[in-house]
């Protein structure tokens, strides 16, 4: 069922939980979570493909003592998602950077 995806993320790649419940420190984290799981559910990629990128992202990411565990984890999660989507040709890193700066500057402000 739904949970088997998360069960396959173990060790440092395991989703942050408290008492079994998912922990999100900020809305962007649950958004990033929902994007990856939702895309996998739609068959845009296999969960296994995402899982291996996530493990790599966790491995490559340095410790950030200033960040909460959930913040650090979902930064890695987002990196893994972007890397996979770029590899599949579904996203261009350039486009993400451009659009992110539009959102950061307030030039773009659509609500969703």
């Amino acid at each position, binding site marked *: 069922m739904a949970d088997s995806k998360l069960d396959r993320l173990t060790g440092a790649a395991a989703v942050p939980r408290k008492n079994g419940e998912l922990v999100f420190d900020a809305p*962007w984290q649950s*958004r990033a979570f929902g*994007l990856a799981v939702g*895309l996998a559910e739609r068959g845009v990629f296999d969960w296994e493909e995402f899982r291996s990128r996530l493990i790599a992202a966790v491995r490559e990411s340095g410790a950030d003592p200033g960040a909460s565990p959930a913040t650090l984890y979902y930064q890695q999660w987002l990196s893994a998602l*972007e890397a996979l*989507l770029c590899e599949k040709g579904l*996203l261009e890193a350039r486009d993400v950077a451009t*659009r992110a700066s539009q959102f950061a500057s307030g030039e773009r402000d659509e609500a969703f």
Partner: protein
Amino acid sequence: MSDTHDHDHDGGHHPRPLSPIEARVRAVESLLLEKGLVSSDAIDRVVSAYEKDIGPLNGARAVARAWRDPQFKKRLLDDATAALRELGIGGLQGEHMIAVENTSKVHNVVVCTLCSCYPWPVLGLPPAWYKSAPYRSRMVKEPRAVLDEFGVKLDPSVEVRVWDSSAEIRYMVLPIRPKGGEGFGEEELAKLVTRDSMIGVATVALPR
């Protein structure tokens, strides 16, 4: 769609600038929306399903297996962590799992007196009452009274054992197999096993 998106209480106005990571998530979502690869509603649904997801009752499979397979039962009671792993039930993060067996002489029940330690990979999300202060304190002081309130009527001769879960050790109860289900297969039996019966605040019965 924004009205179904309950994370944005500011209604789309951003009184403060987005942080770089917030902007990046927005950027990815917005590009994927344009390509028709996701919808905001679908993401909302995923998040809320997982936030509410109680998880599979993995433990129920182990109980059903133990009822039918004496060798597995022995392994479960000897080393539950390893026996659960045999069934592909993992995800325990360093905690050791112990299964305790209910019999006609002993009734086991699990609590976490200090906080709310709970074997979620095995039992799914804990019920709200498990985390409540009254359950945690009363189950130790007057377990029979609490069990009675849960509807578990025990003969006075039955010994009640209360197990206190901790960060290192998590417990599950192996309930008594219900009478009348002798011909049941593992899957049928697993369906009878409730979360509460594996915490010890319920018994397993056949559906009437």
